[in-house]
């Protein structure tokens, strides 16, 4: 049975996007005659309606697959009809994985849309913003729901593009240089995309299909039969490279902190809850491919752990509120990859979901704070806000508690499951487990440092000029919903020691079964397993660390900046390294960006010197006294072009004259 209404899920936000774009066009036209015209306020409602409808459809589809069917599939559409070997059929597939992801995307997306309707009020580009935001959701849904890698790639590029548009949304504002940040995000993403494309080509040439179902069958056969091991590893690594770009993993994570230049709802939706998880989605989707390669698994886990540590430590010393959250996001994404590299597909998705709740909440809360503080982002200039913004304070604290993994909250369970799995794999993974545990400590510390600096202590701003105020209900209601989810979201994946079913694990079983079978096959029938005692010990250890570090982070900072200043003066070098994210960004500039620019400039000069003579012409103009001599250099451009042509032809001719026959 085909379910063609699945097309509607991405189509609705697309329609919303178009309607908002039309409103924006009207606004532009109107403003030409009346500059004071209020921006198109209908756009918010349109976009929210589109999101709500998409969410409703996702719910309906979800309800359908809870029943006896495992997946819903639309009829396929011949994008590139076959004939010459290249045959691409695109279809929408709602299975247990894409269903769960789509629910998170549309559900959290809906809340963020509602929040944004309040947050962006009065912005000149109000309608444009919602056009972009809806377009982003469309692309994300295409990415998730496509039953085919090409469709996923379309969404993959599409979300990158929307992210670019949204990061640079406030291009005309001072500070942060959004335009540059947007471009950086896109170009870094494109490096990953090139890897994705190559990996996709490789899979296509190996298996002759890009359809997920067929692909997984092919991979399963190859992995069980032990064929094509090298190709599988290479493909897995290339796709992981793509995932690194999109999900901001070391060494491609530097764009994400910069991306905070975009409006806060964007940071919440794209750079915390949805787009950055698409790399994880891809790996789960192709879990047999990764399961088949020990090398790929270890590399995924190691990169994940390294990212978690680097970003987690960098979050310690940030002063920009959104910067803290950005590095925290990178760090949590690292956790998810650590899970994937340990074969804990379910735990990864579990963390994706809980993280979507609490990180979206934190970002939105941060937006509320920044909004109330008149665009102040420096946590050193906040303090004592709990008195001014009680609702934001309570919800934000819930999010921070979940993030830091305080016992029984959502983050606690998902993080614990990841660490338990990593521990269970053993071997080299024990080291990664240690890194993960240490990062958990860091997480708890910086979460509570952030809460303490923002909401406790004295007001460190000028009370006379800055009057912090609570945000309107349209913004705080989504915060409350998300706070509730952050608190209780963990029930979908309670650990085995609680003797209740792991809801998510059972739900996802059909999707990850093949990967687990391959893992089992490779390890000779032994899947990593922990005794209940060990699991209890790990749970206890996790709780203790989270509580202890949270306490430390809170108490050192709740009374002002003394601890901050002390650290800065005592360990200036460490402080510098931490607040600079270990200098990786600068290393990039020194190692990659500058050389590429230099190369381009070199080529320009080279072409100029030989052919275009721009530089030499300029010199000749400037230094007329050199006159004729320099002019002799600058003359005969056509001849130089011809010389290159003739030279090229001569080289080919000589090669062929002397070659064969």
């Amino acid at each position, binding site marked *: 049975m085909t379910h063609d209404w699945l097309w509607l899920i991405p189509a609705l936000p697309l329609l919303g996007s178009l309607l908002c774009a039309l409103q924006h066009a009207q606004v532009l036209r109107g403003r030409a005659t009346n500059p004071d015209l209020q921006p198109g306020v209908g756009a918010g409602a349109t976009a929210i309606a589109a999101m709500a409808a998409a969410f409703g459809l996702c719910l309906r589809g979800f309800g359908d697959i809870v029943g006896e069917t495992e997946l819903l599939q639309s009829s396929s559409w011949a994008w590139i009809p076959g004939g010459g070997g290249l045959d691409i059929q695109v279809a929408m597939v709602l299975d247990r994985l894409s269903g769960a992801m789509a629910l998170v995307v549309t559900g959290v997306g809906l809340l963020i849309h509602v929040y944004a309707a309040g947050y962006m009020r009065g912005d000149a580009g109000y309608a444009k913003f919602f056009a972009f935001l809806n377009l982003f959701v469309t692309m994300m849904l295409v990415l998730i729901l496509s039953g085919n890698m090409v469709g996923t790639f379309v969404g993959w590029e599409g979300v990158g593009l929307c992210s670019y548009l949204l990061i640079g949304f406030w291009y005309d504002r001072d500070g942060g240089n959004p335009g540059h940040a947007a471009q950086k995000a896109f170009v870094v993403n494109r490096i990953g995309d090139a890897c994705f494309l190559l990996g996709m080509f490789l899979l296509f040439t190996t298996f002759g299909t890009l359809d997920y179902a067929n692909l997984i069958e092919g991979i399963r056969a190859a992995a069980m039969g032990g064929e094509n091991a090298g190709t599988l590893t290479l493909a897995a690594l290339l796709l992981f490279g793509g995932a690194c770009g999109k999900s901001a993993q070391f060494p491609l994570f530097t764009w994400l902190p910069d991306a905070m230049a975009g409006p806060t709802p964007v940071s919440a939706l794209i750079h915390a809850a949805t787009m950055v998880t698409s790399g994880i989605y891809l790996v789960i989707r192709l879990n047999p491919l990764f399961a088949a390669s020990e090398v790929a698994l270890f590399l995924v886990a190691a990169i994940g752990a390294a990212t978690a540590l680097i970003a987690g430590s960098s979050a310690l010393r940030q002063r920009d509120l959104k910067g803290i959250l950005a590095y925290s996001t990178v760090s949590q994404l690292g956790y998810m990859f650590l899970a994937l590299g340990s074969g804990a597909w379910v735990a990864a998705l579990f963390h994706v979901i809980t993280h979507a709740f609490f990180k979206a909440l934190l970002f939105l809360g941060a937006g509320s704070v920044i909004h109330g503080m008149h665009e102040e982002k420096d946590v050193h200039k906040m303090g004592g806000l709990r008195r001014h913004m009680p609702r934001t304070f309570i919800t934000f604290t819930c999010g921070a508690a979940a993030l830091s993994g305080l016992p029984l909250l959502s983050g606690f369970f998902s993080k614990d499951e990841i660490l338990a799995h990593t521990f269970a794999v053993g071997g080299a993974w024990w080291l990664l487990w240690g890194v993960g545990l240490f990062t958990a400590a860091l997480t708890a510390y910086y979460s509570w440092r952030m809460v303490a600096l923002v909401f406790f202590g004295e007001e460190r701003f000028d009370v006379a000029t800055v009057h912090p105020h609570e945000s309107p209900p349209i913004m705080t209601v989504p915060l409350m919903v998300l706070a509730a989810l952050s608190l209780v979201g963990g029930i979908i994946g309670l650990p085995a020691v609680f003797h209740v079913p792991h809801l998510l694990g059972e739900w996802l079983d059909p999707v990850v079964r093949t990967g687990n079978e391959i893992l089992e096959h490779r390890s000779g029938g032994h899947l990593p397993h922990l005794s209940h005692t060990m699991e209890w010990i790990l749970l206890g250890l996790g709780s203790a660390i989270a509580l202890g570090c949270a306490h430390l982070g809170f108490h050192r900072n709740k009374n002002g900046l003394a601890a901050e200043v002390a650290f800065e003066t005592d360990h200036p070098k460490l402080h510098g390294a931490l607040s600079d994210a270990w200098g990786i960004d600068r290393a990039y500039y020194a190692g990659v960006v500058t050389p590429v620019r230099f190369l381009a400039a070199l080529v320009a000069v080279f072409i100029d010197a030989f052919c275009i003579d721009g530089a030499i012409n300029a010199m000749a103009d400037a230094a007329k006294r050199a006159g004729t001599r320099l002019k*002799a*250099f600058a*003359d*005969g451009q056509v*001849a*130089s072009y011809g*010389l290159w042509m*003739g*030279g090229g*032809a*001569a*080289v080919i*001719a*000589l090669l*062929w*004259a*002397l070659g064969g*026959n």
Partner: protein
Amino acid sequence: MVDLLFYVAALVAVLTAVGVVLARNPVVSVVSLLSCFGSLAVIYLLAGFQFLAAIQILVYGGAIMVLFLFVVMLLNLGGLNPEDEDRDDPLFHDRRRSAGGLAVAVALGSASLIGILRGARHLAEPTNGLVPPEEGFDALPALAEAMFTRYSLPFEAASVLLLATTVGVMVLAKRQRSIPPAGEERS
């Protein structure tokens, strides 16, 4: 006797070709080129292609080269204009460029020569007896027939080409008509 004539014509062709390139005065170049074409016409004649020899003289000599001469005279470039002419040595006014040009010319020429010499062994027929033609060699009838059958498409297209050229040249060379003031002009 005939082959001696060929070598004389070849020598003249090469010398006059060098003259075209080296002469400082464009008029001298034109006259050299004319002589070069003349000696090539002799070679065509020797090879038995009377028709080609005739149009070589008529079209090349009579029309094209006169056109060149006409433009040289029109623009009054006969004398040595210090701005236009290669002041000292036409070849070496700009050493770098000339050296590059000569190098490319030598490379292209030697590539062709290598190809010709290595390829001569592959030629289908024994490679002699081409000049002079054997008795009764007459290319014209076959040439005419092919021109109006197999090659009728390029033949007709050539007439379109001439038409387009006439139009284009007229546009390019006509004295500027007054053009409306720079309303839409880029400054």
